[in-house]
């Protein structure tokens, strides 16, 4: 187990810079998710760390050992001791579960009691029953395949485990249970892990740290709550959860916008872009205290609902409210902003 340090790494394919000067530190034993839309370069970053690709500039180090860059010969993937869990698991279809898990163990150890013990230990770690060892990959569900793939990558005690969108092919209910099991297994084995995903719920709920990537660049790296509550710019805010971004005028700790006066997290002056989370927009159904608007659309989810409101000045605003009592399209409501609001310098025109 070791920490991971990526320093100024760049990789291009033709004219496009897939990974552009990325610097990232992953603490020993921690779990980092790299979050970004498709094509942002997150998978390329993962493949650079695994050693399937070689960076053009910058360096990658596991603990104190530089594995690529800094003028050293890049270490080939098979000597890096990196566990790699690709999409859909990619179990070896000709081997059973036990042989898959034991694949990366030393040749002398394979087929011995020690291997059997290790396989049993790994199955236990990923919370699969011990009698799964003789199943073939095609007899497993998608979630079970992912767990075996993780067990296979953990068996040789890697320095680091890389997971490439491991849950994207699973259906919603399986995704939740599988990802939590994976999280527990990584925690129990105290393994440093990097998981790449485009799903913000997954990224926020699993990780100690979230690294947000956009167009090849790392735009923010922080804890899940920091990324959600203090996104580095409005675009990150809109990618990590829904956000209402309104123009406003700030004066010290307060600003005015289409939703009235709001309190800022930090003082600002002049023209600003205000980022308001939908759950901060309170919809008042009974009093006419606040900014008036007409309900356009209601998406009811049970535990809560999303309400799209058109204000009298034409601005459209999204609110997220409890599902217990909710308005219907056409109702006239009044909106207020609760809690603190982040102000950004408006994007250059």
């Amino acid at each position: 187990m070791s920490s991971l340090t990526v320093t100024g790494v760049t990789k291009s394919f033709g004219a496009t810079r897939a990974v552009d000067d990325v610097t990232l530190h992953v603490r020993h034993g921690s779990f980092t998710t790299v979050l970004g839309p498709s094509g942002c370069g997150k998978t390329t970053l993962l493949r650079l760390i695994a050693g399937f690709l070689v960076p053009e500039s910058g360096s990658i180090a596991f603990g104190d050992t530089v594995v690529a860059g800094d003028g050293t010969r890049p270490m080939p993937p098979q000597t890096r001791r990196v566990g790699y869990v690709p999409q859909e698991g990619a179990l070896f279809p000709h081997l059973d579960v036990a042989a898959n898990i034991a694949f990366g163990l030393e040749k002398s150890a394979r087929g011995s009691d020690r291997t059997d013990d290790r396989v049993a230990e790994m199955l236990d770690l990923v919370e699969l029953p011990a009698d799964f060892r003789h199943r073939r990959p095609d007899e497993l569900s998608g979630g079970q395949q992912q767990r075996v793939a993780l067990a296979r990558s953990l068996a040789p005690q890697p320095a680091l485990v890389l997971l490439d969108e491991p849950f994207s092919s699973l259906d919603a209910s399986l995704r939740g249970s599988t990802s939590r099991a994976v999280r527990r297994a990584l925690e129990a084995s105290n393994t440093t892990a990097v998981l790449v995903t485009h799903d913000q719920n997954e990224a926020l709920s699993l990780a100690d740290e979230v690294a947000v990537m956009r167009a090849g660049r790392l735009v923010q790296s922080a804890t899940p709550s920091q990324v959600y509550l203090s996104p580095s710019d409005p675009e990150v805010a809109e990618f990590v959860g829904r956000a209402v971004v309104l123009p406003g005028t700030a004066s010290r700790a307060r600003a005015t916008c289409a939703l009235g006066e709001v309190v800022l997290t930090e003082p600002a002056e002049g023209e600003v872009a205000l980022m308001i989370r939908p759950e901060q927009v309170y919809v008042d159904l009974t009093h006419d205290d606040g900014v008036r608007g007409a309900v356009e659309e209601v998406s009811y989810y049970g535990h809560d609902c999303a309400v799209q409101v058109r204000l009298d000045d034409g601005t459209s605003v999204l609110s997220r409210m409890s599902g217990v009592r909710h308005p219907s399209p056409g109702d006239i409501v009044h909106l207020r902003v609760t809690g603190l609001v982040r102000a950004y310098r408006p994007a250059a025109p």
Partner: protein
Amino acid sequence: MPLAYVATYVVVIGPVELWQLVVRPRIVELLRNTVTLAAACMAATAVLGVALAFLVERTDLPGRRAWHGLLVAPLAVPAFVNGYAWVSLDRSVHGFAGAFGVVTLSYYPLVYLPVVAMLRRLDPALEESAWSLGHSRARTFRTVLLPQLRPALLGGALLVGLHLLAEFGALSLLRFPTFTTAIYDQYGSTFNGAAATAVAGVLVLLCLVLLLADLRLRGDRRYARVGRGAARNVVPLALGPWRAPALAAVGAVVALAVGVPAFSLVRWLAIGTSTQFPVAELTEALVATVVLALAGAVVTTLAAIPVVWLAVRHRGRLSTLIERSTYVANALPGIVVGLALVVASLRLVPVVYQTATLLVAAYAILFLPRAVVTVRAGLEQAPVVLDEVAQSLGVGPLATARRVTLPLIAPSLGAGAALVFLAISTELTATLMLSPIGTRTLATEFWSASSELRYGAAAPYALLLVLVSIPATVLLMRTDSPAAQTEQVPA
């Protein structure tokens, strides 16, 4: 290489003389014969293949599984054996009508099989949504099913065309002269290399036209493939009063395509064994056939591995070119490859002329595409990501090849070699031209007996040829096996 031979020859011989060689009344007649027969057979097999496939896959025809087996069975009977069966029963089966009938009955499975495979793969939801939109079954067939079947149907029909252009044995027995039989006659009677090669040039052109059409279809087809998740069965169409006529029609096809050759074979076997049953010669021919086919299968499969590796793992212009060029060889009739190798070996390396080496080389050229298609399907089951996982687990490239790639492609290597083995065992044309003097194979022995009208003596060889073909047919029928892709490759 055979293509290069024909091309250089055409250049060397000069346009004037070439023109004189090509434009002769004889050639015009051959061209008319070849083209009309190919067109008629392609049309007939297309209609027959689709109709039978629909009856078996989409209606409540009784005993559909059994009919399917019987309808594919003609593939196990080489066309020249089928021709022999008909001619030996009734001398009046010859000329255009005879050739048309026999060839259609031999080749319709080439359309039937891919159409059946396509019908099974198609998501029934497509048809169901068409009915729910108020279309009748007939209209659904025309507007939804037929357009989807088009690639399989056209691909199969083109295959029939390519087979027909290469067909020598059946047409020769049925005395219907086409380019292929003319080339052989010219080569055999006069050793007239110039005339034979000129005719071969025209034949290659015809093949290339069909091949280009096929390659275009192949390119489109990739996108039309539907996932195999949807394995639900469509509610079969109730035939009602049409059940009896449909049964009779399918029965008639089976009787003509399977019954007649079987009856004829059994009859000649009975007559033949009463006079002679040369066990020693049969064994000798069988051994020679097996040895040649084994050698050819091993050489061809080994040659396929680098081609497939380049095509799948290192996609690029060069690798595509190499892979495609094997498909061009695919369209070359055995007669052209044989002729080219004869002339080339006599000019360049006379030592190998009439040796087993040359014959095996001809087999490798002819059947490389079969091995490539099968092995390719296998290698695509071993995606690169598995190599990457193995590497990340600390396993080096060589060990990865041994522990991951090889076990995964081993079944397809076996299937490819088996297919080539069986194809070689029943190959007639190139074997006739290139086999070393004194080497007797099943095909050559059968041929010498049947072309001398010794039908009884030919029967045991014909039976062995059919027996050898059965395993390949079974491989082809399993549509889920990698070998099923090979149905698209002509002999």
